[in-house]
């Protein structure tokens, strides 16, 4: 069996989507001439000719030794190292990385050239590499997006400090544009992790408090999956954000009533209420959203409300209509999943307007009209209705971007983040039609810019009443046996007690280990490490552990951010991990102390619902 057939067999198992690249004709925008030559040591070296220039991708003398020297520079022995590499080459460098990598590591490789991929699959035996479960491969210039999704899902704050990024020799010179794109994707991926970790740390206490307060509402609520795919596809959604341009066309919305799903972001509700413009539902996701955005307008209390369990509890408390849970809370997600109620994958994008757009997508809507989504200042205005909402250190993040009229408009860093989110969403979903009817602000590349009146005329053509639609769907608990799920919620009472008890026990073990240092006997040393492991496993299995972990998340971005780093000194590494365990245990005890009363209060309320 030749190399190609052998490689294909493994590809079929692990990367079936790449098989077609090997079967069809590959059109090359920039033709490459590829050659495998024999190096002096008998190994094979890859040479690529592009625009008359030869690029040597391996040593012509000893490719194996070269790869070993190259790989030596990377720290691959930390816990759960995520490595990201640009360029597959003939696999020699990849093999060397895998050789040095621990079992729990992972290597994500982007090969920008389909032609080069196809060539090396014919020329070299890749079966070992392709079979290695730590290895992940993305081929083609547009493959970075898939990389971002896969690797991004794995990355967290603790993995950032041990992340390895590398470029196959010669690839930068050969594929400069793809190289730039690779780094852009990596930067963005890391930005998301950092932003998320910092946001989680800042909002964690608030989010946990919200989850506990919101528990009693579970009984009368629905969750998003129950609504998915049930709205006729020809019905468009109108996402009403509160950017300054909303003042220009808010009145036009009246023409869309009853012919679209009008989703009011929490920030836009007061503007709609003041103008007495009807909308179909509200969405709120921010754990710290000031409640007065809604509570000052009693008219909105009965509107269906999309929220997640971490959303501001005072808003949920004020609201009397149907509540529909969105994804976004780890606790609720785990609780529902265990009982067979599955939430869809979800990327909320960071603002309530992006979350509203995602809500429309989850509901199966393909034509989404945005209004008030300026993502830019209008003069100095940040929001409609003369309202200003500024962010910390705003001046430092101000930049100019392309406006919808081809001009340059002033924006700020959080809006740039949302702008990119929309653009990536559109890049990934070719059938999605996002109509930017904001009539001002930044241009969302990939969207269709229209006046709202024109968009309504074109898309809002079928009658649709969301109130009727939601009225026909009973709360989840009415048609399902929710008793086991309630029992799990009630189980948190015991879970919190268990966590405190075991964390205090773990603290004692860790203190003893640290205090005794080198003086500890071998038997006691092994016993304590075993007890710590047992305590960790026990704690992680308790009901409500997600909330306790969240409540201690400030530790993860502070004292424990290097928790995965290995120094190479086994003794020191062991001591560091016990010190980390001590910090975590103390964090768990503090967290239980902080939120236990609220849990008991909430569970009591639940029992009375």
């Amino acid at each position, binding site marked *: 069996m030749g190399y190609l057939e052998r490689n294909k067999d493994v590809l079929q198992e692990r990367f079936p989507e790449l098989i077609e690249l090997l079967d069809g004709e590959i059109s090359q925008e920039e033709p490459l001439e590829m050659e495998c030559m024999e190096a002096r040591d008998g190994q094979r070296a890859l040479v690529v000719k592009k625009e008359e220039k030869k690029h040597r991708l391996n*040593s012509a003398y000893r490719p194996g030794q070269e790869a070993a020297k190259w790989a*030596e520079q990377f720290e691959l022995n930390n816990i759960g190292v995520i490595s990201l590499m640009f360029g597959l080459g003939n696999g020699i460098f990849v093999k060397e990385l895998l050789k040095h990598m621990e079992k729990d590591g992972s290597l994500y490789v982007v090969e920008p050239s389909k032609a080069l991929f196809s060539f090396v699959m014919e020329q070299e035996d890749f079966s070992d590499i392709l079979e290695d479960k730590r290895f992940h491969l993305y081929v083609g210039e547009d493959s970075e997006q898939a990389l971002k999704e896969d690797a991004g899902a794995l990355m967290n704050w603790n993995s950032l400090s041990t992340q390895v990024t590398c470029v196959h*020799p010669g690839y930068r010179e050969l594929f400069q544009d793809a190289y730039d794109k690779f780094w852009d994707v990596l930067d963005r991926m890391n930005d998301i992790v950092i932003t998320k970790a910092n946001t989680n740390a800042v909002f964690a206490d608030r989010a946990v408090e919200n989850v506990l307060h919101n528990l009693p509402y579970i009984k009368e609520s629905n969750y998003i999956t129950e609504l998915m795919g049930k709205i006729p596809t020809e019905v468009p959604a109108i996402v009403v954000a509160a950017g300054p341009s909303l003042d220009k066309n808010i009145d036009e919305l009246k023409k869309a009533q009853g012919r679209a799903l009008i989703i009011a972001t929490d920030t836009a509700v007061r503007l709609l209420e003041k103008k007495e413009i009807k909308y179909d539902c509200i969405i709120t996701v921010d754990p710290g959203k000031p409640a007065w955005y809604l509570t000052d307008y009693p008219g909105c209390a009965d509107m269906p409300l999309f929220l997640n369990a971490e959303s501001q509890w005072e808003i949920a408390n004020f609201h009397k209509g149907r509540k529909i849970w969105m994804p976004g809370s780890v606790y609720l997600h785990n609780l529902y999943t265990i009982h067979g109620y599955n939430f869809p994958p979800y990327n909320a994008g960071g603002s309530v307007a992006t979350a509203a757009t995602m809500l429309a997508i989850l509901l199966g809507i393909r034509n989404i009209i945005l209004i008030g989504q300026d993502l830019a200042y209008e003069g100095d205005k940040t929001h409609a209705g003369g309202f200003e909402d500024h962010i910390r250190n705003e001046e430092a993040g101000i930049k100019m971007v392309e406006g919808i009229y081809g001009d340059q408009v002033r924006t700020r860093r959080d809006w740039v983040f949302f702008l990119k989110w929309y653009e990536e969403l559109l890049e990934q979903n070719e059938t999605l039609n996002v109509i930017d009817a904001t009539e001002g602000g930044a241009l969302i590349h990939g969207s269709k810019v229209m006046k709202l009146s024109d968009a309504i005329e074109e898309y809002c053509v079928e009658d649709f009443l969301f109130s009727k639609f939601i009225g026909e769907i009973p709360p989840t608990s009415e048609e399902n046996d929710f008793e086991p799920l309630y029992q799990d919620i009630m189980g948190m009472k015991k879970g919190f007690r268990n966590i405190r008890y075991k964390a205090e026990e773990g603290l004692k073990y860790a203190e003893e280990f640290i205090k005794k240092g080198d003086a500890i006997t071998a038997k006691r040393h092994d016993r304590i490490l075993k007890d710590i492991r047992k305590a960790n496993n026990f704690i992680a299995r308790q009901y409500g552990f997600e909330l306790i972990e969240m409540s201690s998340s400030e530790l993860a971005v502070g004292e424990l951010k290097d928790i995965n780093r290995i120094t190479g000194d086994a003794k020191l590494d062991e001591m560091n991990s016990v010190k980390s365990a001590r910090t975590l245990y103390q964090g768990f005890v503090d967290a239980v102390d902080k939120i236990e009363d609220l849990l008991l209060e909430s569970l009591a309320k639940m029992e009375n619902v």
Partner: protein
Amino acid sequence: MSEEKKYMIDTLKEVQDNMELFYQQKKLEALNQFQVMLNKILKMVDILFTYRDENDSFSFDEKKIQESLTLSMQALEEGDLILVADTMQYEFVEYVNQLVDLME
């Protein structure tokens, strides 16, 4: 060990370290260091000639040394850094190492 031989051994080690930077794609660092190394490499060649003049039993292939250095310089001009490292490491250093073994 003569001072010349010690100089040769130390400098060859430095050249190898420098080539490692080329193999590790640390381009800027590698080139900066190589610039400094060039004078030391030329001094090594001078030492070889002087040593040969002073020792009848010692001889070497001048052409081989000249060719390896020329090839390295050409590769440098063409920006082929892997070839720079290859020729320095596997032509120049390996051969000079053999000669150093023959020196007293």
